[in-house]
């Protein structure tokens, strides 16, 4: 399945690896922040109702 990358394998894989890592990091961070903020907001809203 792996395509033949020849002598540029390092460059191509490095570029894909780094980019995907950065995108994954950004998505992960955004989702994490969103989840955390949602939870905190819910906490405070619940507290307000009591």
């Amino acid at each position, binding site marked *: 399945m792996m*395509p033949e990358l020849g002598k540029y394998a390092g460059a191509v894989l490095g570029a894909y690896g780094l980019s995907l890592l*950065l995108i994954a990091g950004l998505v992960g961070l955004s*989702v994490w922040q969103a989840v955390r903020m949602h939870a905190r907001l819910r906490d405070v809203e619940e507290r307000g109702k009591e």
Partner: protein
Amino acid sequence: MQVSGRFLPWVAGLAALCLVVGLIWGFFLTPDDYRQGATVKIIFLHVPSALVAINGWMVMLVASLIWLIRRHHVSALVAKAAAPVGITMTVIALMTGAIWGQPMWGTWWAWDPRLTSFLILFMFYLGYIALWQAIEDPDTAADLTSVLCMVGSVFAILSRYAVLFWNQGLHQGASLSMDKQQHMSDTYWYPLVLCMAGFMLLFLALVLLRTRTEVRRRRLQALILRERMA
């Protein structure tokens, strides 16, 4: 909030679909270029991320203008949410470019106009994000960053021309103009379009998500403030 909540999963799903298909197509199913060898596959990351990096700044500019003129709060938050996404895309474009440049031009980095312009764009993003971080009052921060974004846009364009004047460069011209058929064969063009769409949708999804986070942060601060007052 409701509208964005309903759209978000679709946009995110579509982004993921486009990206997965486009990147797999680009990575596994395209032939090597006769001159550039396998490194041509980097284009499927390099060009879309550069595109989104520039358009991200445009989104910030438009959102800032809407905030300054209409005082629409969500608009300021969109600008705030877009900046980290834009800077990440700038970094991806710069790094994939360096990795691509190494085998092709024999150097990781050259002070070529396009590369230099992107580095300058990176500096602008950095200053913008730093200003958001530094100011505590949210409305003041929104106002000041909007003013900075507008002035920065003018200077970014000036820098672009200054850099062109300064050095004429190695980087090939735009390979994606309307007459693209002359530059690029369809084998690369279709997956590239898919990847560009994927990056755009990813940007949209991330900005939506981050804006929702910011809206909630505002609400949280307001609630805490009200509790303290009571």
